[in-house]
């Protein structure tokens, strides 16, 4: 079976710094892959290279076996790859509802039908469900910019799901999110994963979350993969403990 995502020898340099150094891995359909590593180990940079946000210095990225070199972020999204960002990225002056509808509308119909069709592209009901799930119901018509940090983080995650993607790449979804909500989020991810076969790649520093969610974990340090395997193996790997988890 072709992997959903295949990263082959990707490197990225900024000046003299090799932020991502010859990284290769595959992600198969239905996996929940955790990507961990010390601060500055190149996780976000790797995401950006995969998702067309930054051009990789070398190497190639395949989505469903198709090379996505030169593809823009919106093209990747159209291929069914959703993402969130580490730093807050919402549309601050639009309402929460509009934020969510926007996240789904580009997958509905054609350019023309979006001009002449329904203003909400028929997404309101689904958007409201999504908003309710993330407990933003009382904020539906507020401007996204006036939400608290954690609420914006949740909104960002909600947007990544709106298009019903087959691969979602989440950069620190748990940061700033209340533990109870986080537990719900974890269930949601698992449900998505089991019911729809969606695949996830998650960057996260919250070990409890990562260990209980992911089926496989890759550890990055200084831009290189230093360990990978199932949560148990990784947790007990001395190099990982030394480089990342600490004593």
């Amino acid at each position: 079976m072709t992997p959903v995502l295949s990263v082959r020898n990707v490197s990225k340099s900024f000046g003299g710094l090799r932020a991502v150094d010859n990284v290769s891995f595959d992600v198969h359909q239905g996996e929940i892959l955790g990507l961990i590593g010390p601060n500055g180990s190149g996780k976000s940079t790797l995401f950006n290279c995969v998702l067309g946000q930054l051009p990789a210095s070398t190497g190639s990225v395949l989505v469903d076996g198709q090379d996505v070199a030169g593809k823009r972020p919106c093209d990747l999204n159209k291929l069914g790859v959703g993402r969130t960002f580490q730093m807050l990225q919402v549309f601050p002056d639009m309402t929460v509802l509009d934020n969510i509808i926007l996240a789904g509308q580009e997958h509905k119909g054609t350019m023309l039908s979006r001009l002449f069709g329904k203003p909400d592209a028929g997404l309101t009901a689904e958007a409201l469900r999504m908003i309710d799930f993330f407990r933003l119901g009382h904020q539906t018509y507020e401007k996204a910019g006036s939400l608290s940090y954690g609420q914006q983080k949740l909104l960002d995650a909600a947007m990544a799901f709106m298009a019903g993607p087959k691969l979602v790449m989440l950069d620190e979804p748990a940061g700033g999110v209340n533990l109870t909500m986080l537990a719900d989020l974890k269930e949601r991810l698992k449900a998505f994963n089991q019911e729809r076969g969606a695949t996830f790649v998650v960057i996260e520093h919250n070990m409890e979350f990562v260990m209980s969610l992911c089926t496989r974990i890759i550890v990055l340090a200084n831009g290189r993969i230093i360990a990978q395997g199932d949560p148990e193996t990784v947790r007990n790997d001395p190099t990982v403990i030394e480089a990342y988890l600490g004593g």
Partner: protein
Amino acid sequence: MLELKQVYGGYGKMTILNGTSFKIDKGTITTVIGPNGAGKSTVFKAIFGLLKIRSGNVLLNGEDVTALPPAKMLAKGVTYVPQGRNLFPMLSVRHNLEIGGISSTDQAQIARRIDEVMEQFPILKEKAKEQAITLSGGQQKQLEIARALLLNPSLILVDEPSIGLSPQMINETFRTLLRLRDEGVTILMVEQNAKAALAMSDYGLVLEQGRTRMYDRADELLADPRVGQLFLGAHLEEA
């Protein structure tokens, strides 16, 4: 040390704080927990003079400091690390630190302190000349925390220091806070990483809808099943 009495306030005409009251003692660590949007960050802004308080008082060592602007609060030995990204993106790491110490009267000491915190957060030393915007998320957070340590405050307000930090760095940060506490500094912290935070704290405070719901010793809160169920995600784990 710090006391809030029936504080009401919010954004525009919107009320977020509905009579928040609490009192913390000198030389303790208190962690504030609560759901997203409860008003935790808003409380901090209110204390630090960044939010219009409609009624109520903030007392610092018995003195009324309600609505004092940030510069005055700094002069009284209070520092504040906000949530989110708070850097000068185009300035270098070192210059970002330097500006963190600008309010001090003893600039020579600040220069020394900069060297010290750079030892503590080696990545900052390594990247001293880089523009702050090029740092990774966690590196930026480290820079912010380091910046707050430059001055010798008597009260530190930290809003979710752990976001973006690796487990090792979280430990390092918490250890630093504990050391400061032992030196007599008072710390008020918001954390979603509540279990770890409460475990190192003296007191815990549950904030909801802008009101203090619970206030107790941290270990008591950790043991309280209601808190566990509602804020620590316990009910799902047990299920």
